[in-house]
């Protein structure tokens, strides 16, 4: 998959993770900016997923397609799940959950890139 797009997803997720982590350290519960951040992460992830699916249907296949699709589905579900659980916890720990969710996304993207065969694993 396209490197630039992968870095965009990773960068966005890291920024939101840092912001939420800082809010957790300061003892702040999740607020609207957290959700906007998660929304941004989800948006770039969906763009990544749609382009990956498009490439798969037009011939270019990852080395291990099964694993790739499994990871892709998981990655796309992480920000909404983080938003649901994090928002329900109206303390600093809610911000922590959102931060964790955003840290998992880059890990998933690195794995996705490795499975696709572009990045060394």
């Amino acid at each position, binding site marked *: 998959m396209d490197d630039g797009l992968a870095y965009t997803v990773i960068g966005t997720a890291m920024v939101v993770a840092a912001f939420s982590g800082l809010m957790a350290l300061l003892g702040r519960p999740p607020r609207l900016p957290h959700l906007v951040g998660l929304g941004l992460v989800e948006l770039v992830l969906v763009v990544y997923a749609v382009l990956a699916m498009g490439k798969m249907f037009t011939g270019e296949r990852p080395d291990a397609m*099964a*694993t790739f699709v*499994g990871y892709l589905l998981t990655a796309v579900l992480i920000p909404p799940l983080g938003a649901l659980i994090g928002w*329900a916890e109206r303390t600093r720990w809610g911000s922590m959950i959102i931060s964790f*969710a955003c840290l998992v996304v880059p890990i998933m993207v690195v794995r996705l890139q490795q499975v696709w065969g572009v990045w060394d694993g």
Partner: protein
Amino acid sequence: MAEPADTGPAPDPGPGVPEKTPEQTEVQTPEQTEEQTVAGPAATGTGPGRVLVAVYGFFALAAGARAGWQIATRLQEAPLAYLLSALAAGIYLVAALGLASRRPAGRRVAIACCTVELAGVLVVGSLSLLIPDVFPRATVWSGFGIGYGLVPLVLPVLGLLWLRHTRRPAPG
């Protein structure tokens, strides 16, 4: 509902955590006050516990999606490894639900899951290093979960510690 407005604060978040700000106490959810009308053990699914619920949820999802797909497409390659991954995913899901639950049964379920998980990661982790042929394909628990940043090893320990921490009702 004729219940005391405040029968006790949320579970002690542990050392090093400053007291809640007024802003945080005023946004207590209804279920937090409801659960504390019974003088049972403190809730396992709020505060730091909710972080555990989230991490267990992520793991159930990640391991589940991977194992489900592997079983559907190439079970014959490594049936034991793939079925074990699916089992691990199931245990993570039940652990998340048990921790999130407010009922005493939830606590017992969570304790059972964390214990099985810890035993699983230790046994499978040792086996995968001593007799690699048993698991030709990696599972969540292979190499003590090194493929997942050792989180599978740390998570059940944190879970059991948290369950022990919340065993008694919150003070006050």
